[in-house]
């Protein structure tokens, strides 16, 4: 045997009950701060230190949410969700194609990268008036805007991920006489995966941001519309309810990508932070 035998990661060796306990403790730690904030807000508003027409009590927001859930909320959520998913799918897949192209070929980089760098320096929201002029105020302009928003983080991280691949690993494939395609499949793609996931996750969060921008400007349904509706009718409870729903959906979509990331990238040998017991 080798002189240095490493043990398996400690968490695998722990008995199950202790793990469950730990998981719950983590969850409680996560909830402590939000619970405290909600409690303080409730008290501050109920006592009257903050006027309720500006800052509704958390319990009032919960009631508003319930009312909305019985009515139009689902229509708004499904409209927004559809836009985000469609825009993200289009933007991210185009970005992946271009990232692979530019990342793998220096020729493509010479042709494309300066243009993308130029386009990237345009703040994406500056496209809004142009998109409205060209595509009108219906769905297409919103989805295109979201796709633009999602494109650049995915593209940038994708190119960086490919260019950061360890040359020494690639050389192993060259040693075996791998064809270009096999090199991509067996070494480049798996090695670039961590960076690609980083890009996809930041692309997803930008997609939500651009959704709100698009819907604030011109929409008749969607969570962004709910926000501007709440402002126009002086209903901060509606605005806050919409914000909460947006936060939940953003967290949900990111959590989905994060769990995929965790599954595909379990092999990574990374620093996970110090635990309290250390």
């Amino acid at each position: 045997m080798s002189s240095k035998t490493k043990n398996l990661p400690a968490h695998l060796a722990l008995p199950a009950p202790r793990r469950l306990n730990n998981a719950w403790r983590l969850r409680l730690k996560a909830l402590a701060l939000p619970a405290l904030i909600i409690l303080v807000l409730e008290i501050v508003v109920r006592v009257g230190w903050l006027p309720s027409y500006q800052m509704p009590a958390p319990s009032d927001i919960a009631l508003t949410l319930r009312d909305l859930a019985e009515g139009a909320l689902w229509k708004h959520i499904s409209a927004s969700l559809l836009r985000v998913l469609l825009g993200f799918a289009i933007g991210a897949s185009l970005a992946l194609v271009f990232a692979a192209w530019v990342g793998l070929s220096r020729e493509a980089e010479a042709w494309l990268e300066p243009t993308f760098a130029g386009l990237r320096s345009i703040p994406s929201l500056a496209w809004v008036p142009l998109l409205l002029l060209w595509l009108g105020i219906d769905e297409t302009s919103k989805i295109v805007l979201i796709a633009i928003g999602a494109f650049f983080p995915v593209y940038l991280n994708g190119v960086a991920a490919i260019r950061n691949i360890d040359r020494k690993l690639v050389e192993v494939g060259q040693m075996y006489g791998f064809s270009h395609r096999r090199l991509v499949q067996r070494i480049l793609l798996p090695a670039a995966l961590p960076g690609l996931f980083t890009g996809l996750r930041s692309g997803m969060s930008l997609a939500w941001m651009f959704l709100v921008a698009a819907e604030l400007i011109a929409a008749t349904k969607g969570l962004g519309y709910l926000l501007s509706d709440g402002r126009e009718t002086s209903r901060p409870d509606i605005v806050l309810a919409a914000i909460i729903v947006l936060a939940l959906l953003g967290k949900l979509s990111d959590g989905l990508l994060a769990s995929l990331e965790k599954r595909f990238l379990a092999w990574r040998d990374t620093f996970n932070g110090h635990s309290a017991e250390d």
Partner: protein
Amino acid sequence: MTEHLLDIRVERKTFAATTVLNNIHLQLLPRETVSLLGPSGCGKSTLLRIVAGLEKDFQGELRSRAGEVAFVFQEPRLMPWLTVEQNIGFSADNHYDKAWVAQLIEEVGLGGFDQTLPKALSGGMAQRVAIARGLYSRPQVLLLDEPFSAVDAFTRMKLQDLLLQLAERHAIALLLVTHDVDEALYLSDRVLVMDNRPSSIRQELAVELAHPRDRRDPLLAQLKALSLTELQRAHVI
């Protein structure tokens, strides 16, 4: 006359304006172990890459009768996303020969680690996997580029013995690049002492000792003194 597995003649190899290798003739017999001994940056690795066919731009000739030639790098260079088993069968994609891989895992002393990911391996264990990966294609010649320079001294000795065992069992010729005099003498039938840049072969030392060898053998000490003298003359040390 015995047939050479490899017969390499490098008249000249240059990188831009610097000549790295100059007038080198190197032959490798079946089942022979030959070490190239020299300082870092003297062109040993370049010579090895020429032999491996990774470097094609040189003046000279490479004649090879060896069917398969495999390479073990200085670092393990395992794919971190693949298990030990998948890494060993890496060259055959996902349809590698499971029984052969299992046998290799046993032979390099990693039984039970077949599903382990590289991140859970120590440096020595990872290099064992790298050696097994080199053996997977059943090579006749194994090229090793300072394969044990990154592990501690005790692990290195164990890995050296393991390498000799495996070469013996599978009838493999070894061509090894190293800057470790003891390693070169302990492992090899012939040690080629390299000059400084532009390097050529300065001296050939035959180590006429049967395996298994004793690291304390006086002949090894004697040869070590000889090669150190030669290295000193070459202004390497």
